[in-house]
């Protein structure tokens, strides 16, 4: 490689390195400042020593505690508990829940902290993991049997899955 080419190659590489360093610093600064994301235990015990204030807007991510989902018969209102490793936070929401919302499912809710363990959410999003498998395999491996809500009653009589 002749010296001129070498110079140009070094030039190109140093641009990439400089921009990379700049972007990296920007992103790390951003993630410290605008991350309003909490897990249930961070809401109760604090994240890096700071507990969120009542009235603050935040995002919470956790698992829906099985058996905690309470639906209002008259409206779309629903309330459920979220947990990760320890403490439980209750979330209330009025609206249509995503297809993947189930007990035991990971979800992310955005809303206002109304009490120190109670959140009024205006958006509920379901998160899923990176595993994909056919239903028969899931039943064998994990003992999971998913039944669509609309099939719930009829299936109890016939005893068959989907």
């Amino acid at each position: 490689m002749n010296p001129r080419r070498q110079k140009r190659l070094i030039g190109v590489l140093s641009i990439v390195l400089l921009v990379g360093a700049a972007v990296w610093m920007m992103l790390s600064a951003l993630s410290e400042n605008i991350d309003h994301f909490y897990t249930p235990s961070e809401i109760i015990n604090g994240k890096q020593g700071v507990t969120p204030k009542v009235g603050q807007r935040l995002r919470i991510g956790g698992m829906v505690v099985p058996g905690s989902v309470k639906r209002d018969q008259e409206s779309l209102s629903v309330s459920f508990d979220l947990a990760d490793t320890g403490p439980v936070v209750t979330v209330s929401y009025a609206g249509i829940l995503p297809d993947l919302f189930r007990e035991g499912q990971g979800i992310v809710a955005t809303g206002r902290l109304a009490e120190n363990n109670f959140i009024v959410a205006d958006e509920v999003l379901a998160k899923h993991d990176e595993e994909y498998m056919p239903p028969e395999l899931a039943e064998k491996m994990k003992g999971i049997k998913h039944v669509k809500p609309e099939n719930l009653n009829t299936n109890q009589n016939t005893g068959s899955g989907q």
Partner: protein
Amino acid sequence: MWKWLHPYAKSESTYKLCQTLLPWFSLSAGITLTIGIIWGLMFAPADYQQGDSFRIIYIHVPSAITSMSAYAAMALAAVIGLVWQIRTAYMAMIAIAPVGAMMTFIALFTGAAWGKPMWGTWWVWDARLTSELVLLFLYLGVISLYKSFDDKIQAGKAAGVMSIVGVINLPIIHYSVEWWNTLHQGATISKFSKPSIAPEMFWPLMLNLLAAVLLIGAITLKRLQNELLRREIHRPWAVKTLLKEGKG
């Protein structure tokens, strides 16, 4: 070691190479795409959680992965163009750009269509989605920068620098699901561990990935040929080629 590459700095030999490769790429892309889509959409089993809706994975994942590989290829062409000052490398760069942009758009579009029923939203400003959107803007930036110069050597240099700078975005897209709390899932397929997807779903996915790569290759080759002819329309080899193809 790299001597065999030298002839391809000449536009005529590049054109001939494209001519030889193009039928193979088109044919294999057609075959793998047909089999892959039918296999994935009709014969692969449904997912235990998402049911049949998960089948959009067979379009979403191949287009998302190849949108990044196409960008890497474009940036590599730009490096070769800038360092060794080879015109055909700039032409290859600009031949890939719109194809990569198309793949990025497909990935974003199918992702939105998948997100609405499953997550509950078309769009969230999470790290993975945002960085993929930035990739689309980078492609569009490279294309429009190239278009805005009349001198195509200058155009190649400017667009080349931009595409090289944008390479920073590729690791950000890839690791976004690990570095931040994203709504988007983590990686299902990784080089170093067993994929978190059942084999009967994994293989059609791989076939569709191969199909996407071949499709990008085929379209890029054809675009590169057009670019070569357009730029060298007054040169004898181009006139000869055009006359021959016009007759045939």
